[in-house]
């Protein structure tokens, strides 16, 4: 993943600079935050004047400047971790065990340890800043026989441990809540206004999460606090002061001042980190305007149609789609460029590339939904079939059912569509020699629009038109080559929502072995099903698979918006009629998707709304993407039908689609 990303011009020229700017701003915001923290930690009701003078002198002290440098380093580190771990497609765990797998993934463990370490550093800075009894780890004390010796200052230790605990729990909660997921807002705002608007929420979230973290820490320290304490004492040769009462006792923790200082420090820690995260999100998701037509030929790799086909960095693809959606909505001059013809030759290259990229996305989602629906429909039956391809299906199906759908159906699906965006990126480039000869729908609307234009848009000859109606063709045709493609794909580590280490290699073994393994698996499954813990871990989380299926649907939403707005604008702006040639395929792919989405929403859990809480930095958008997609899809079809009205009757399409379209024309959907 890394080499390909770093080689991309976009990451180098745009994303890094954006990340650097966001980190710079979060470092610049550190002094005011620290000043507020110092003031709050020193504040006393009885001596307000004294508090202010104390704060001012402290802010000037060398000790604070040193800790400030440390804090700056921590913020930069957090910023780098954000850049390294961010994703535009959330990772959705479909079961508890998958979540556990995510937590124990080496990458994640490194992340957690880094956060833990940074938490200790921030905890030390806080302890030094608050001063008084928290300041140093060692303190002079007298042993029982009156000899002065170096004793352990438990307050300081508590601060360090609290920092580590809060950092660690922040990182764990980050995985559970998908905090590294960067979502794109429907409402574009200037960065400053966006930041200003989100600031109260960040403050509230960090205060609340700090409260819960400190509560949990208190409980943990109460039971397990003696372990780090004795360890520190052993290694640093410090002594426990017996005259001072211990903190891991009931009386020790009923110390309101200590709890207040812990809470305010944890809030400070989380606030600075969340600010860094927020700034990173705001900067990265800022609209980037790609040129539609290159000014110079050597810049052609930067222009919008080229970027839309490239798959590799997802962020680039998302920003390109966002830009496309915005230009189709707001910018007549740039729309004109999309509709324009190439200068020598007069080909509508821009429109063809753009529409093909969008249609490929939609077709990909349609097939994914159909495949998922089949998996769910065949769940639990049709297990022993003769042909190799069919057995592949059944083993897949039973596998999914066996582990209660550990993975989303995507890996299965990916191999089926060589034209799909994702398959391409996994199978190593758009012209994979392995998959190209097996392309099942060479004359589908998406493969060669030029050819299609010659033959005319006759949908009946497109094989995947029929494939949706009859699942058997659908199942057989693309699966013929999928077994051979499987090994190729599964050898490369997939970066998909189901990036759990998977025992998928089994299914590529020769058939008798597969049969044997499958029987074993059945037995194991039956055995395991009786154990409660196993069931708890392996049980599928409701609606998670549905969420996983629509995890990257923001791209589809933009594709739908862009297509519908462009088609709407083409009614008046398209001088050469380039859009008219693709209108049938746009309509049919939208209607296919509509059908698949409708079917999907009839499944249990698909239409249940997620529970949301406002007090978290978690971005909930990914949980409701499927609803947003459904609404956008309907609006997109309506946008086309209201623009074209009865002219659509002249468009060639299948009878079923015409019937569906008629419903849209009559506003009965």
């Amino acid at each position, binding site marked *: 993943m890394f080499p390909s990303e770093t080689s991309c011009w976009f990451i180098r020229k745009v994303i890094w600079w954006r990340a650097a700017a966001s980190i710079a701003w979060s470092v610049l915001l550190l002094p005011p935050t620290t000043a507020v923290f110092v003031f709050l930690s020193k504040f006393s009701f009885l001596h307000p004047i004294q508090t202010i003078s104390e704060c001012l002198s402290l802010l000037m002290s060398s000790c604070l400047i040193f800790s400030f440098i440390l804090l700056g380093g921590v913020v930069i580190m957090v910023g780098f971790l954000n850049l390294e771990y961010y994703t535009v497609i959330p990772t959705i765990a479909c079961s508890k065990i998958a979540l556990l797998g995510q937590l124990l993934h080496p990458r994640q463990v490194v992340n957690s340890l880094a956060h833990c370490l940074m938490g200790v550093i921030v905890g030390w800075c806080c302890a030094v800043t608050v001063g008084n009894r928290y300041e140093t780890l060692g303190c002079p004390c007298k042993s029982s026989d009156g000899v002065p010796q170096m004793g352990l200052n438990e307050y300081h230790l508590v601060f360090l441990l609290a920092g580590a605990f809060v950092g660690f729990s922040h990182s764990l909660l980050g995985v559970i809540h998908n905090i590294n997921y960067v979502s794109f807002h429907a*409402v574009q705002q*200037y960065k400053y206004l966006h930041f200003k*608007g989100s600031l109260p929420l960040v403050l509230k979230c960090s205060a609340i999460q700090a409260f819960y973290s400190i509560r949990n820490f208190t409980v943990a320290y109460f039971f397990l606090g003696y372990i780090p304490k004795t360890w520190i004492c052993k290694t640093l040769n410090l002594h426990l002061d017996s005259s001072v009462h211990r903190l891991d006792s009931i009386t020790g923790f009923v110390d309101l001042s200590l709890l207040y200082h812990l809470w305010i420090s944890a809030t400070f820690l989380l606030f600075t980190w969340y600010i860094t995260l927020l700034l990173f999100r705001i900067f990265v998701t800022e609209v980037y305007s790609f040129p539609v037509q290159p000014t110079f030929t050597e810049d052609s790799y930067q222009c919008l149609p080229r970027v839309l086909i490239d798959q590799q960095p997802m962020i680039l693809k998302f920003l390109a789609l966002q830009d496309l959606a915005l230009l189709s909505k707001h910018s007549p001059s740039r729309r004109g460029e999309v509709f324009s013809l190439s200068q020598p030759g007069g080909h509508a290259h821009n429109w063809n590339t753009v529409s093909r990229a969008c249609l490929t996305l939609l077709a990909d989602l349609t097939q994914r939904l159909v495949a998922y629906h089949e998996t769910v429909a065949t769940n639990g039956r049709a297990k022993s079939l003769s042909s190799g391809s069919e057995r592949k299906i059944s083993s897949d199906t039973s596998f999914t059912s066996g582990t209660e759908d550990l993975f989303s159906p995507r890996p299965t699906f990916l191999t089926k569509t060589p034209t799909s965006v994702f398959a391409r990126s996994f199978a190593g480039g758009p012209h994979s020699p392995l998959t190209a000869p097996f392309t099942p729908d060479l004359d589908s609307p998406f493969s060669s629009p030029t050819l299609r234009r010659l033959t005319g848009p006759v949908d009946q000859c497109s094989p995947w038109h029929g494939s949706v109606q009859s699942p058997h063709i659908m199942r057989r045709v693309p699966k013929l080559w999928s077994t051979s493609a499987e090994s190729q794909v599964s050898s490369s580590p997939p970066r998909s929502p189901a990036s759990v280490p998977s025992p998928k290699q089994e299914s590529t073994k020769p058939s008798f072995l597969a049969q044997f393994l499958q029987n074993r698996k059945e037995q194991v499954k039956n055995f395991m099903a009786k154990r409660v813990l196993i069931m708890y871990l392996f049980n599928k989380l409701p609606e998670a698979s549905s969420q996983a299926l629509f995890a990257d649907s923001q791209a589809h939403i933009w594709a739908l918006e862009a297509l519908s707005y462009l088609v709407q604008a083409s009614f008046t702006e398209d001088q050469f009629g380039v859009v008219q040639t693709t209108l049938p395929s746009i309509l049919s792919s939208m209607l296919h998707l509509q059908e698949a989405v409708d079917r999907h929403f009839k499944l249990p859990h698909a239409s249940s709304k997620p529970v949301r809480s406002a007090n978290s930095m978690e971005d909930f958008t990914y949980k409701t993407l499927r609803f*947003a997609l459904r609404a956008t899809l*309907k609006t997109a079809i*309506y946008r086309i039908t209201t623009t074209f009205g009865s002219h659509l009757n002249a468009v060639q399409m299948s009878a079923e689609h015409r019937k569906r379209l008629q419903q849209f024309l009559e*506003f009965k959907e």
Partner: protein
Amino acid sequence: MCSLALFPPPLPPGQTTMCESNNELLSGANNSEARQDSGPLSLHFPRESLKLHSRTESSSKAAFLDHSETLWMRSAAAWRDGGFTGLLNEITTSHAEVPKWLSVTSGCILALLRWVSSFHGSLYPHVTLSSEDMIAEFSQVLNWSDCVVRAFAWHPHTDKFAVALLDDSIKIYNPKSAITPTLKHRLQRNVAAVQWKPLCASALAVACQNCLLVWNVDPCSLSTRPSSSCAQVLSHPGHSPVTSIAWSPSGSLLVSASPLDTSMTVWDVAAESCVPLQRVGGGGVTFLSWSPDGSHILASTPSALFRVWETRMWTCERWPCIKGRCQSGCWSPDGSRLLFTVQGEMVIYALTFSGSPGVPPGLVKGPQIAVVVADLSETTFNSPDGDIIVGGEIQSLSWDPRGERLAVLLKGDPEAANRPAIIAVFKTRANPVFELLPCGFVQGELGAEPRLLQFHPNFQHGALLTVCWSSGKITHIPFYFLSSDVSQVGLSGSPPLPHLQERPADFSNQSLFTELIS
């Protein structure tokens, strides 16, 4: 500038306005019964037919609540119902049971809070109103609290409409089906506005007292009582009561406003996520109107200030008014012109926005000053039955979707008999200069006051004004005219009544066709 003195005199009592044809308003005498039969969409909701809530929840609470609960239970209940102030109030009132220091402290905090809120209230007087009074104050409906029809909305693409009634139910009428679904929801109280989602057949947004509801009424469903699971509840802390809502014309976003919330909330309805856009000045947002091209939103505040938001990057221009708050406003169909009225003034202002949505927002040169386009100060018309005074403050404005007719609801004076609330209709002309020309007054039956008006979004023969009357009637008044962009020749003329002959657009087609043959 147009003034009411140029208008033809109002009809004598007993006459009702029927339609506009051949450039003049036709009236009929007391044949409303016959007219009701002709139009299936003309409705009548007699006040007696509605089952009203006899008492509000807060008044019935005292009758049922058991007062022998423990302090803890009461405190919890007070916290749940009244929040922090409720809790403090409970502790202060039950001073016999709590320690003295606690009741004294809570009493002090309560007094402090009251002092602060009274200070806030002196800055923004509207915050002291109860939420029902606030909706009545800021609603576009004249005398909202007493109105049988509280909100009305045509579907933007088809011939159906939704009517919110005094009993908090919403009925949906469709001339093509016999089923009229009735929408009721526990949270659907004091409906201030309803609006259909554009580019969608089924979604209806409802502004309620405590939240926003988005109903999903399946047009093919045969059910007359859609269950409350068809409604999405959108609420945001501090964002109530909702007095105004506006869908974006592209159907993707919904904006809602509350006079108590300084931020205007932009909802992504399907995802149920919201983005509050906060601007502190003004003390709240009362009325929203999204321009038909989707590029601007008018947002008025309870104080003498309104804002015009630009919807690309969501920045706003501030427009301070001199006298009062902006009461109502409407956009021309191309979104380039905004007409608005200010409370306490009897004129209509116009603002012109030259920027197209494609130009980057920094380059758009906004208008510098608002121009007065019509003067609606009081004018006396002499009639045999006595003088009638027409004019005064304006309750609401409505511009037909072609930009040819502007209906203005004048408040009148409920005390004085000869100053009725009345609808004045203007013709509007954009070329060569923008001006309003007098068309006439629209009057209903004797004793019926207009309360609410709206134009049909796609009436083919001109404009169709729907008026809800104080008697509970809903009538539709067609204005037959040729749109100026269809044919420049018949600018001031109007086509014959459409049920006699076909549309003018068809004529031109036919003549072309015969030319082709010959």
